[in-house]
């Protein structure tokens, strides 16, 4: 169906259902309950899930298929954001031209960086891309201030010369990003008993674009081009003596991957028309690498899972402060309560990086294939054992 195999189509359907019903799935706790802070179903965070999902899907086309580890993907993200904001400033507040321009500019950028960096492979390639990304970051921060507005970041102002549209709304406000009049930030709230679900235009636009990106990625993975990319990862020497020059293939993969990142950057700007240099910093590049490896490099769904996982941690786990922990363990005697809180303290709130780091280590050591491999192992175990002693065997048998 749609040129996909049966298995891929099922996977695509699952992702589509998850993405479209995310406002329900991510809001399992009633609004007034103590667990409501674990709800991730608000538009701002869901947008981050899918947008960083796009970034990771694109990164995986390069890293998962060809094995070239780019440490500079944030540069494309940043370039995409700047391009989109300029489009808002100069042309129109409609998101379509902004998204298109962000992809084109990031693609051109990727041609240049890729052409130079792909002369080397392995660690040298990684370092070259890292160097390019840091150069872009520093340029955006200082020399290119007229284009990037330096430290402050590029923003929409009241005197933008917007060709198709107005510089300011009738009541003197800054116009908002929209898709043919549908404002990105507008949302509907559905109240069902104690639950509240929010459906925002911005999220659904991003989710649909993510699904299109995911579909294209599946097609690339299953195509002869994808097979060629896996051959590059597997044995470049053999490919070279088989009459193929690997360079155009790696460059194409790099550019496609860069355009995905540009698209993600453009979408970020669509949701919040602001572009800052810190989006290009090397930590941002590293984050994509983490997402992809955490989810499972080279798998289709892995990067999306990894992106969701990290963004959930960043936004939800970091909000658990000492007070919240006190609330959980208040049943303990006073001295013990303080002790437990002191022990948990470094791992939550501002210390969420520590927990994430530990989890990342555990996953890399015990599940080198990432979350996807974990899922496959569980599925295999469930299938092998009869349903009756499932729970027991899962807890007693050590991991393979």
């Amino acid at each position, binding site marked *: 169906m749609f040129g996909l195999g049966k298995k891929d189509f099922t996977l695509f359907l699952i992702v589509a259902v998850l993405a479209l019903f995310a406002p329900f799935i991510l809001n399992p706790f009633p609004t007034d309950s103590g667990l409501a802070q674990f709800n991730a179903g608000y538009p701002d965070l869901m947008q981050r899930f899918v947008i960083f999902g796009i970034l990771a899907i694109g990164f995986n086309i390069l890293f998962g298929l060809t094995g070239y580890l780019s440490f500079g993907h944030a540069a494309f993200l940043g370039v995409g954001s700047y391009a989109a904001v300029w489009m808002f400033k100069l042309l129109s507040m409609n998101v379509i031209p902004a998204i298109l321009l962000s992809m084109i500019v990031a693609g051109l950028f990727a041609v240049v960086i890729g052409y130079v960096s792909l002369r080397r492979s392995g660690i040298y390639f990684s370092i070259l891309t890292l160097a390019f990304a840091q150069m872009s970051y520093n340029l955006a921060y200082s020399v290119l201030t007229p284009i990037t507005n330096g430290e402050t970041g590029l923003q929409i102002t009241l005197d933008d010369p917007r060709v198709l549209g107005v510089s300011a709304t009738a009541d003197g406000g800054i116009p908002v990003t929209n898709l043919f009049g549908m404002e990105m930030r507008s949302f509907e709230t559905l109240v069902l008993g104690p639950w509240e679900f929010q459906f925002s235009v911005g999220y659904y636009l991003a989710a649909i674009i993510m699904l299109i990106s995911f579909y294209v990625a599946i097609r690339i993975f299953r195509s002869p081009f994808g097979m060629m990319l896996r051959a590059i990862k597997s044995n470049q020497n053999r490919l070279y003596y088989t*009459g193929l020059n690997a360079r155009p293939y790696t460059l194409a993969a790099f550019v496609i991957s860069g355009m995905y990142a540009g698209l993600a950057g453009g979408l970020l700007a669509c949701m919040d028309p602001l572009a800052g240099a810190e989006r290009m910093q090397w930590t941002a590049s590293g984050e994509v690498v983490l997402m992809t490896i955490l989810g499972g490099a080279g798998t289709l769904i892995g990067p999306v899972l990894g992106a969701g996982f990290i963004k959930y941690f960043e936004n939800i786990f970091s909000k658990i402060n000492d007070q919240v922990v006190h609330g959980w363990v208040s049943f303990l005697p006073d001295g013990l309560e303080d002790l437990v809180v002191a022990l948990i303290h470094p791992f939550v709130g501002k210390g969420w990086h520590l927990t994430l780091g530990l989890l990342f280590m555990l996953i890399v050591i015990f599940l080198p294939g990432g979350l996807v491999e974990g899922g496959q192992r569980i599925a295999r175990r469930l299938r092998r054992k009869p349903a009756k002693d499932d729970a027991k065997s899962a807890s007693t048998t050590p991991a393979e």
Partner: protein
Amino acid sequence: MGILDVKDVNKRFGGLKALSEVNLSVQENTVHAIIGPNGAGKSTLLNCLVGKLIPDTGSVMFDGQSVLGRKPFEINQMGISRVFQTPEIFGDLTVMENMMIPLFAKRDGVFRLHAIESVENEATLRERAEAMLSDVNMLEKRNMHSASMSRGDKRRLEMAMCLVQEPRLLLLDEPTAGMARADTNNTIDLLKEIKEKRDITMCIIEHDMHVVFSLADRITVLAQGTPLVEDIPANIKGHPKVQEAYLGEHA
């Protein structure tokens, strides 16, 4: 004039003269073996033929065209395929995928992006790959992960990958190195079969005398970077110069 003509080739690595005044002519549809003791320059010569090294002086002509200055993938497109000493295959891919890549390469030659659409005539290519696999008795292993196969099977697969491109010249770099006797004999049989069935020229670099004498139509003996003699196998065995330079070393 043969299909491959090497003329006055010299190659130096610093102070070491790896090849000096090498002249060699491989005739079409023959099996030409190059033998010689360790350090005789066999591998250097082979690398000069496939574009990995460029000789300091001299010329290498394939079918009337110079291969010098061309990159390995361009030389492959001229019709020269190479089998490596340790089988070079795409370990992460299945046997069938391994076979498809040389076919795509042969078809496309240069870069073509088939990212969404499948290649036209993919079915025909698939049939050709399967026919080739059955020629080397590997059809039943087509869905196997190629990294998990035995060395003998990897060797077979690599040869199939080279042959499916229908090269005019097949270069084999010690095709039986490190193989058990049984595997070696299988490889000899396979190569004999290939020789009978196809119009193909083979150039074998080999250590193992048994392999050389059971396959070669002509043999060149290389020692210290220079060809000592070139003759048919029967005359090579008893040649005094060869005894001295090559067989003598073993005694």
